[in-house]
């Protein structure tokens, strides 16, 4: 159990972390989510006593970090992949850490085996790829067999196989009753691993909720309609008491209705439909809406205002789901149709 109480960090006049109060509970994966620059890494560094808080405290099982006897046996952390001496072999890098906390050297071989680096144990770590560096960092976190594990952006720079491996590792560690605290700026990744969610923006707590509640509250579902007789369709919908919102490409979006209802309605009024599909807003969108006011670094396009957040779901977000990963409910990207709703099949001509 990690408790943060009124944790604040100022760099000059800039507030990086602003009165953060929350708890990280054992036996589950807690996702720590926020856009870049939200203060996630600063918070994690303060948890490890690397940065001094301006005010507030962090307690780990009721103690300050520096009061822990041999801290690697309580809490293991992966902060960034390149935090080892490149001129030292993977084995020796871990050996110095193990010795400082009186961990037997046999444990070094064990964790190297766990992360799959046994084959390169004697190689200098400066030759390691980002993914191998990340695995070495995870090995150092596991070294003391700690009850609490912290990972700062563990999937950064990893290939699909590596991401899948880390995700399963975190779940397995949580299932053993350990406290897992993992930061990310990718909602889609968190949706697959985290049981609990702490969201921050500009250092302030925005949400502290279970993943299930977050999905339930934030995944808006709606029905999308496209018709060559759009005006008539709108009239019909209006008469029947549905609120239709016009969206891109001449489609209509209706909240709080089922495809069955709307299909039958169109048939009754003999309106031709080219599309009838149920849609779900992604959690990524919900996350971006939540943090929209607190994004530190906006990309600007053209003169004036900030660009609206791009639609996520394309890019690498799709690829990593393939090797065995199962998509959690609610992560469907906008634009993809859920199975069962088919384009235009309910068209009924006159």
């Amino acid at each position, binding site marked *: 159990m990690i408790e943060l109480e009124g944790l604040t960090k100022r760099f000059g006049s800039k507030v990086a972390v602003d009165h953060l109060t929350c708890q990280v509970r054992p036996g589950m994966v807690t996702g720590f989510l926020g856009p870049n620059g939200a203060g996630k890494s600063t918070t994690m560094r303060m948890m*490890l006593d*690397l940065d001094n808080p301006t005010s507030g405290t962090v307690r780990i099982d009721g103690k300050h970090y*520096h009061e822990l006897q041999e*801290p690697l046996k309580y809490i293991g952390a992966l902060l960034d992949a*390149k935090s080892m001496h*490149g001129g*030292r072999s993977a084995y020796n890098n871990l050996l*110095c850490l193990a*010795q*400082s906390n009186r961990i037997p050297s046999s444990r070094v071989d064990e964790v190297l085996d766990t992360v799959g680096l046994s084959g390169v144990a004697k190689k200098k770590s400066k030759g390691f790829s980002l993914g191998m560096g990340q695995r070495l960092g995870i090995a150092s976190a596991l070294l003391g067999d700690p009850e609490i594990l912290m990972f700062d952006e563990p999937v950064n720079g990893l290939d699909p196989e590596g991401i899948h491996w880390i995700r399963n590792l975190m779940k397995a560690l949580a299932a053993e009753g350990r406290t897992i605290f993992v930061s990310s700026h990718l909602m889609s990744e968190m949706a697959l691993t985290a049981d609990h969610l702490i969201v921050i923006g500009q250092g302030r707590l925005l949400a502290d909720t279970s993943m299930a509640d977050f999905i339930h509250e934030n995944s808006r579902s709606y029905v999308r309609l496209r018709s060559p007789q759009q005006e008539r369709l709108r009239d019909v919908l209006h008469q029947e008491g549905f609120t239709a919102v016009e969206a891109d490409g001449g489609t209509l979006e209706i909240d709080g209705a089922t495809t069955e209802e709307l299909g039958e309605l169109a048939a009754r009024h003999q309106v031709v439909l080219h599309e009838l599909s149920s849609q779900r807003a992604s959690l990524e969108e919900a996350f971006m809406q939540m943090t929209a006011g607190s994004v530190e670094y906006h990309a600007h396009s053209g003169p004036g205002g900030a660009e609206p957040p791009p639609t996520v779901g394309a890019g690498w977000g799709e690829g990593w789901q393939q090797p065995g990963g199962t998509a959690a409910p609610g992560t469907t990207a906008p634009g993809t149709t859920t199975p069962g709703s088919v384009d235009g099949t309910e068209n009924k001509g006159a």
Partner: protein
Amino acid sequence: MASVPAVLNSEWTKIRTVSSTTWTLICAFAVTVAMSAALCALLNATFDDLSEAEQATFDPTLVSFSGTVLGQLAMVVFGVLVVGTEYSSGMIRTSLAAVPQRGTLLFSKITVAGVLALVVGLLTSFVSFFLGQALLGDRGTDLGADNVLRAVVGAGLYMGLIAIFSMGVTAMLRSSMLSLGILVPFFFLISQILIAVPYAKDVARYFPDQAGSKIMQVVPEAMGSDPSPYGPWAGLGIMVAWVVAAVLGGYLVLKNRDA
């Protein structure tokens, strides 16, 4: 609290598992011994060309440590790298997460590295001394003579203290490049030049290297040098004060700054 023997053990592993330790220390030994031997041979051959004052105050012990001027730079590099690579590699965060008692971490590191530098320094000074005396032949001296053993041990301590001073400075500056960029020109150029300039030398003689190297002299005002306001042990004391200040400064920086 972290167990001190465990941290010392860990720091020893850190030092012995990087190649820079081996090559900087071998360099310090080889450069000092080789350059001292060359100068001993040269002075022995050209003794008659020395000025009268230099002949009168010829100090065979001091001459056999002439290579220290260059060899100490390798000791500076050793001291800087021992501390500086923690920062340049990002290892410092991992190290502090493992040992959050920052004083324990820094003093353990300096103890292990400092003892190693002192051992190598003493080995260097004894080898340099015996080889130099052999090359000086009749003009040489031996360990039994007055104050000679003090000078030879002192030369070894000097080499070790230079390394520890560099460790303290690097802990304050938190960067290998910056520390090397300041310490190497300081010891090799600035200090050597200022000690030869009138008035400036009154200040420069209190620099750590100038004060500390007094311990290597057996003959007062050796080789026609200026008289000094302090004796050999007081000189080493001045150097130790610099070293303590640097290490303390390094500790305060590490203790108070964010890693």
